[in-house]
């Protein structure tokens, strides 16, 4: 838990239908610079909602989220500026189908960071090279496999030079044989010291790469610990039940 706090979530609540459904019911947590925070939990536990709240894709009902010391839940905050520093990877990749891989990666740096086209493309090609897809730069997303798409989605987010990467079940929609190639890219990223928040069902990844593991259920944090402790000595009965089903 060294490293300063990058994201601080305070008493975050997200209610639907006038409070009948509580997706998040008072969550407190912190993300430190350079760590890999892994969020696990059964489906409907609110883990995706929590992750999506971090860059306000979900607007919380109450509570606050401090990013780099700024409360981004304040309506006066320009969320777009902060989102540029928070890369996001989705379960279903969400590549832009009408653009080439290169265009997918350069449109945001060019339009938002005003990066010259040549520079943006050079950087994009370097990033693609790192994930072994530089030969795919001029293909369209539909010509790629799921694993390739997700690798592109990761480098598309990286092209904006984010301070933190948010992963929303990045391997859930992949065929089993493609999970490895995506996890490898994520491991590499973690090794380079990127701050990451990962919602996943990959317990192996959590154990191997995670700095901390958070278990959520019913919209609240049940327990958090280092991966070793978490998997070896779960404290809560709910955690025990969950782990018994997934391991």
């Amino acid at each position, binding site marked *: 838990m060294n490293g300063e706090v990058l994201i601080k979530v305070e008493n975050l609540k997200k209610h639907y239908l006038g409070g009948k459904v509580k997706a998040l019911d008072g969550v407190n947590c912190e993300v430190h610079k350079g760590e890999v925070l892994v969020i696990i939990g059964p489906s409907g536990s609110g883990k995706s909602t929590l992750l999506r709240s971090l860059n306000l894709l979900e*607007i919380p009902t109450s509570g606050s989220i401090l990013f780099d010391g700024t409360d981004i839940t304040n*309506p006066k905050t320009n969320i777009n500026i902060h989102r*540029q520093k928070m890369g996001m990877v989705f379960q279903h990749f969400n*590549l*832009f189908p*009408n653009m080439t891989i290169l265009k997918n990666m350069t449109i945001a740096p060019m339009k*938002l960071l005003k990066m010259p086209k040549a520079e943006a493309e050079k950087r994009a090609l370097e990033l693609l090279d790192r994930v072994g897809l530089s030969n795919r730069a001029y293909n369209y997303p539909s010509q790629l496999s799921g694993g390739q798409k997700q690798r592109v989605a990761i480098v598309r987010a990286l092209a904006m030079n984010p301070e933190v990467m948010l992963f929303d079940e990045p391997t859930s929609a992949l065929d089993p044989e493609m999970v490895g190639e995506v996890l490898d890219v994520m491991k590499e990223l973690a090794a380079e010291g990127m701050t990451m928040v990962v919602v996943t069902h990959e317990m192996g990844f959590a154990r191997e790469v995670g700095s901390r593991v958070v278990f959520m259920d019913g919209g609240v944090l049940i327990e958090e610990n280092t991966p070793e402790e978490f998997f070896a000595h779960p404290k809560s009965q709910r955690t025990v039940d969950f782990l018994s089903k997934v391991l």
Partner: protein
Amino acid sequence: MAEFFASIQKKFILCFVDDGFWKWLVQGFKNSLVITFFAVIIGFLLGVVLATVRSSYDKNEESLRLRKGIGYYLLRFFNGLCKVYITVIRGVPVVVQLMIWYFVILVSQKNGVIVAVVAFGFNSAAYVAEIFRGGIMSIDGGQFEAGRSLGFNYVQTMIYIIIPQVIKSVLPTLLNEVIALLKETSVAGYVGIMDLTKAGDLIRGRTFEAFMPLIAVAIIYLITVIVLTKVFGIFERRLRKSER
């Protein structure tokens, strides 16, 4: 048979050659095309704006309400305005709208073609808006989220990410609207504009021949529509390439 062709030829000459009436067809066709072309541009631009406002409200109502900004009330107001506009335009026959523009709103505008461009353009916008709104709503929500998560604001996401995809998916429907518009301009004669239909009408009134001018007009419309369909088809295929 020879007699038949001779009679056809005689009628043809009477209707188009004798008094130079073919010039009316040319002039009328030109006016029909000019009105359609500029009305399509107005309709497209205004329609996209209307559709963006409408779908923005529909898609973001909840999140905007939660953030309680003035943006919510502004958007709500404009959404209401767009709804009223679309309802009124779609509820009133275009020929009535045209006459209202000509005799009531743009009273001082002497150029009938300009009035028609405005009337048909504003009319078409309502239809284009609904076509586009359907297109925007049909784009996967993940595309919005991907755009927003990269840091694009709402309008940028629309312009750079969503609209280009929407255009591709609504192109066939949009072509229908262009074709419908071309044919709708045939009521321009009501405000004294000589469009293609009116040109045929005039020839009919002068020669008392119904067949020749009507068939000529029909064939010109038909060929124009076939050409338009062809051109849009090429355009569409080019856009579709990326899907493969």
